[in-house]
């Protein structure tokens, strides 16, 4: 007897922060429009006690930690109401995935702002000594989430390789860098990755698991950007998580050449899946043939060929306000099933965190993603049902 196909749906990490959260942290006064947004989304998401938030915002009676609590609750509710199976808090308390870690661990010093793309920027730090953290960073954040949801929870953590790759190095390889060998540069980067994994991320992971967390997602957007350094990504993942009793461990990678990942990723220990960005590079037309799905074909074949790990299928382009229709999400999933020939290896998510999109767009996108997953399940379950049941 065949059990029904089910595609769990999740976010990847960040959501935009509401203006009523951003402005107080920036020391700017709220305007009526900001408070109206808190009221509108409170009503729409049916956030318990949102009217108290609105009143407190009007009276300017909330301190910053209380505002963070509310922002986390709103984000959680948005993800729940959109219908996701697995949630977190949209990283409402974190400044940004890199800065969140660099600002906490010892050994990093901020150097300034650099561009990511277009008019998007991030603060970049330099490593100036061996990084280390004195304890877990995100346990309080995690405990708040589990107290406010009954859904499954997945905690995103910035990976060691990305911390290394996105930092300036003023410690490991600075001296004699001009005209030096590739081997010397690789060795310095390896030491940097290992130190971050063992001395910064692992203490956080251990603390989270002790607090009850059973799904750690390591975010490595830098993973495939230096093909010959993918082994360092694996080194960082394993060094941070080896022996940790989390039920699920996964890795998120985006906007990269995924062909560089294999075979090194076969060495990831107990990795449930790689959650990848696909939709950004795909067509918006419907269809489940190879030519209909240019953003998926090549990478999914690598998953098929190597058989490990599972796929976190990015079905929403996070850099566009285009709201993917549910039938487009359906076709992307069905295409993935046709390539992998194993729906149990597939879970569904946006390409990446949705922080650059408005909540209105995010809500519509996520709701359609969930609906698209249900449509794909219907197709597959009907196809596999006995003929009498299909009548």
């Amino acid at each position, binding site marked *: 007897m065949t059990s029904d196909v089910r595609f769990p749906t999740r976010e990847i990490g960040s959501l935009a922060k509401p203006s009523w959260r951003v402005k107080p942290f920036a020391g700017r006064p709220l305007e009526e429009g900001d408070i109206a947004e808190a009221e509108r989304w409170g009503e729409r998401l049916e956030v318990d006690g949102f009217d108290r938030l609105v009143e407190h915002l009007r009276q300017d009676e909330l301190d910053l930690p209380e505002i963070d609590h509310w922002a986390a609750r709103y984000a959680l509710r948005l993800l729940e109401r959109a219908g996701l199976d697995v949630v977190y808090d949209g990283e409402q308390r974190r400044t940004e995935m890199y800065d969140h870690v660099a600002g906490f661990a010892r050994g990093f010093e901020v150097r*300034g702002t650099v*561009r990511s793309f277009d008019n998007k920027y991030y603060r970049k730090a330099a490593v100036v000594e061996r990084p280390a953290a004195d304890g877990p960073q995100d346990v309080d954040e995690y405990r708040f989430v589990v107290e406010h949801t009954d859904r499954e929870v997945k905690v995103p953590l910035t990976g060691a390789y990305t911390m290394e790759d996105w930092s300036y190095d003023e410690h490991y390889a600075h001296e004699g*860098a*001009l005209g030096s060998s590739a081997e010397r540069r690789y060795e310095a980067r390896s030491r940097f990755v290992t130190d971050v994994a063992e001395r910064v991320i692992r203490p956080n992971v251990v603390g989270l698991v002790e607090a009850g967390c059973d799904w750690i997602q390591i975010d490595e957007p*830098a993973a495939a950007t230096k093909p010959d350094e993918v082994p360092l990504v694996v080194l960082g993942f394993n060094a941070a998580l080896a022996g940790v009793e989390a039920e699920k461990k996964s890795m998120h990678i985006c*906007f990269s050449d995924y062909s560089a990942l294999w075979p090194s990723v076969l060495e990831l220990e107990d990795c449930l899946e790689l959650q990848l960005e696909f939709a*950004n590079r795909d067509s918006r037309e419907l269809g489940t043939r190879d030519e209909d799905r240019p953003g998926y074909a090549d990478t999914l074949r690598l998953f098929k060929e190597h058989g490990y790990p599972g796929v976190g299928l990015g079905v929403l382009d996070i850099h566009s306000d285009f709201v993917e229709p549910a039938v487009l999400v359906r076709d992307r999933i069905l295409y993935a099933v046709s390539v992998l020939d194993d729906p149990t290896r597939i879970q569904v998510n946006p390409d990446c965190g949705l922080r650059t999109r408005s909540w209105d767009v995010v809500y519509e996108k996520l709701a359609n993603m969930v609906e698209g997953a249900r449509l794909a399940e219907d197709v597959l379950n009907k196809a596999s049902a006995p003929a009498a049941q299909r009548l």
Partner: protein
Amino acid sequence: MQAYAPGIYARSEELIQATRDLDRGRTTPEAVEDARERDMAELVAVQEEAGLDLLADGMLGAQDIFRPLAEATEGLDARPLTRFLDTNTFYRAVLVAGTPRLRTPLPAPDLPAGRWLATLPAPLAFARAARGALTAQTAAEAIIAPQMEAFAAAGCALIVLGDPFLAREGGVDEAVAALGELPRDVPLLLHLPFGDATPVLEALGDAPVDAVGVDFYATALEAVPEGYPKEIAAGVLDARSSALEDPEEIIRFVERLVDRGPGGVSLIPSGDLQFVPERIAREKLLRLGRARATLTEGVPA
């Protein structure tokens, strides 16, 4: 021995904030343009203070190296966000939706004629940004050549053709053939930022360019063949590192490079200085100038 700084320069914190504010509807395009002009004036002043031989406008309005030409060309569009090499930055891949034709050349910067350089994508780099939907030959003939002619007419002293992919992905024959389609009114530098130039350097010795730019933070000195026929534009500032270079170290390195007998040596950053904060980029330029002054004029570094 000249020194100069091609590519996209770092935006100041003020310009960054202005562009952020524009995206959020808090300021006007005019205010952003004012901030950009202030940045450019500051950049020119820094280059003058550093004693750089050629001035660059820093491409402070460019969102990536391909975007200005993509937007100025009929039949092209820019959409999918694509990681730029192994950096935490992205460019928008070029979509080909028709027969490309440069609609109107990009305007020349407001810099003294005969003393400024321009940076453009090399033909094969542009083709690769279009993911093969455009040949290097077409990019050269239909887009880059007419742009170069416009810059030449406006008093450009050096055109830097950036190819961030060539050192990593190869394709020298195609790159060289396309370079052959370009006008030679202005000296040409083929710049290979952020990549180990070892595999392509020898073959580029015969390329129709006057100089080859090498990132010496990704390329070992020994990769430069003895008696290399072209000028080497030596990337001696690490454009991806916040660490400030010691001019003495640059000088020692350049002396070793000169000993290998290339057709000439000039000094540049390893790539676009937009990869470090503006405060650091500015200090790096000053140090580049100090190293060059010592090497050419005996001024103590």
